[in-house]
């Protein structure tokens, strides 16, 4: 279990202010403190995490491990963040599946950010073993006035199929930043949907997706940003494509108010020959140059 944990959680879990480790559908270890409470939902279907108002720099780890083949784990994690609280939440799911049965984790994360609270949410998906591994994360975020949510998601190889849905509703002066990093290979399939409603004045959303699609993999990126009032959004989808991979980007920006300012940029292409040539003139081989460009792109 610990090796899988290391793949999905960067910090030392014992040092987190609170944590909840879920393994094969059950909570196996938990830590709370006076600011951060973790409460079970009925039928071990998930947890409610309550962060007290004015909590500063709390770190919460909620990893999920699936090591038994053939498990389909659906978990609901709800985060209730108090006013002015500032926390980092590190979630991640590791599947170790060496058998023929499919292992699946569908995490439904809901964030309720009170006024002026700040959350940095880091999520990492990792799969190992030859068995089929499926992740279908759903994230819903409700941002009250002046709150900030930064979401960082990383999925590098190992996941056969994933459909990710992220929905957010932003009130006045709320800010949402999403950074997605994705690398697919073999026959992998990854679909991402972002649905963002900018409801309050001066709400802003910044969505950046960088992905690399190789071999026979398929990626689909949809962003649907609606500016209902004076608001700002910048969505950028940038993909490197190789071999027989396919990448589809569907940008939707919908301004329902004349003072909404919405921008979408999408670029899909192979690695520029000029970049490869430059690195080769510095002594790298073609393969080394490609590796450096991809690693930099997903850094």
């Amino acid at each position, binding site marked *: 279990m610990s090796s899988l944990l290391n793949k999905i959680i960067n910090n030392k879990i014992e040092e987190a202010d609170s944590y909840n480790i879920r393994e094969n559908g059950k909570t196996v270890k938990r830590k709370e403190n006076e600011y951060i409470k973790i409460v079970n939902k009925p039928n071990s279907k998930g947890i409610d995490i309550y962060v007290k108002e004015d909590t500063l720099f709390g770190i919460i780890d909620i990893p999920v491990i699936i090591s038994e083949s053939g498990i389909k784990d659906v978990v609901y994690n709800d985060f209730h963040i108090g006013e002015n609280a500032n926390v980092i939440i590190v979630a991640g799911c590791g599947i170790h599946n060496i058998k023929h049965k499919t292992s699946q984790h569908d995490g439904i994360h809901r964030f309720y950010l009170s006024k002026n609270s700040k959350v940095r949410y880091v999520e990492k998906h990792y799969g190992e073993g030859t068995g089929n591994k499926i992740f279908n994360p759903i994230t819903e975020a409700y941002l009250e006035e002046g709150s900030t949510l930064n979401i960082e998601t990383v999925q590098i190889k190992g996941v056969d199929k994933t459909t990710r849905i992220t929905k957010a509703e932003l009130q006045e002066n709320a800010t949402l930043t999403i950074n997605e990093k994705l690398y697919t290979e073999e026959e992998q399939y990854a679909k991402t949907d972002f649905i963002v409603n900018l409801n309050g004045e001066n709400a802003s959303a910044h969505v950046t997706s960088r992905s690399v699609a190789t071999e026979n993999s398929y990626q689909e990126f949809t962003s649907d940003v609606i500016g209902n009032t004076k608001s700002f959004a910048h969505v950028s989808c940038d993909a490197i494509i190789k071999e027989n991979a396919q990448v589809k980007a569907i940008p939707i920006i919908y301004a329902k108010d004349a003072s909404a300012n919405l921008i979408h940029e999408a670029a899909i292409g192979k690695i520029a020959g000029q970049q490869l040539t430059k690195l080769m003139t*510095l002594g790298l081989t073609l393969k080394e140059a490609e590796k450096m460009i991809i*690693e930099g792109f*997903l850094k």
Partner: protein
Amino acid sequence: MLEFKNICFNKDGKEILKNINLKLLDDKFYVITGPNGSGKSTLAKIIMGIEKPTSGTILFNDIDITNKTITERANMGIGFAFQQPAVFKGITVYDLLKVAIKKDITKVEACNILSKVGLCALNYVDREVNTSLSGGELKRIELATILARKPILSIFDEPEAGIDLWSFNNLIEVFKQIEEDSKGITLIISHQERILNIADKIILLENGEIKEVGDKSILKDIFSCPKGGDLCE
């Protein structure tokens, strides 16, 4: 020493380079000049292996490098500064300098290299080599990657292109320094008289042929001043 033997290069049925024979000697500073489309950049790319000649041979210190790859030539000590430097998302100036110098260097060492090209190093070392940098900044970083490698043969393709006058003045100082320190061959493609002024030898290329090789006097017709007298500044 670099030697071209009967180098020809054709593209799309057009003769870009016609039977080039040329020797470049060690510790010399050469400038190739000539009208647009005369084949200057192509000649430089052929040395680096970015373009392959249609026929002919290139010898580098008596080794035939005609069929060697870009990587092999780079590792033999040939360096190339591009006219339009490549940009990279996510790769920093520091990353690029580490590759150029072929070892792990400290940020202080990276800063020292950058200060040679007139960049206030601490501001730049962690910046990404992307389009947020100006043309002049990218150009200097490009130069820094060459200086870092200390090549035996350094090629600079129109280093003055796309930079403002202020940056250009600094660039001249960088090249004067290279000229003084140079242990190998320096080859610059340029139209700029101030760069031509510091050359040991000027190679004039026209219509894919070497028209003349010599000192600045070979350009008298081109740079002659309409008011009479010597070269116009």
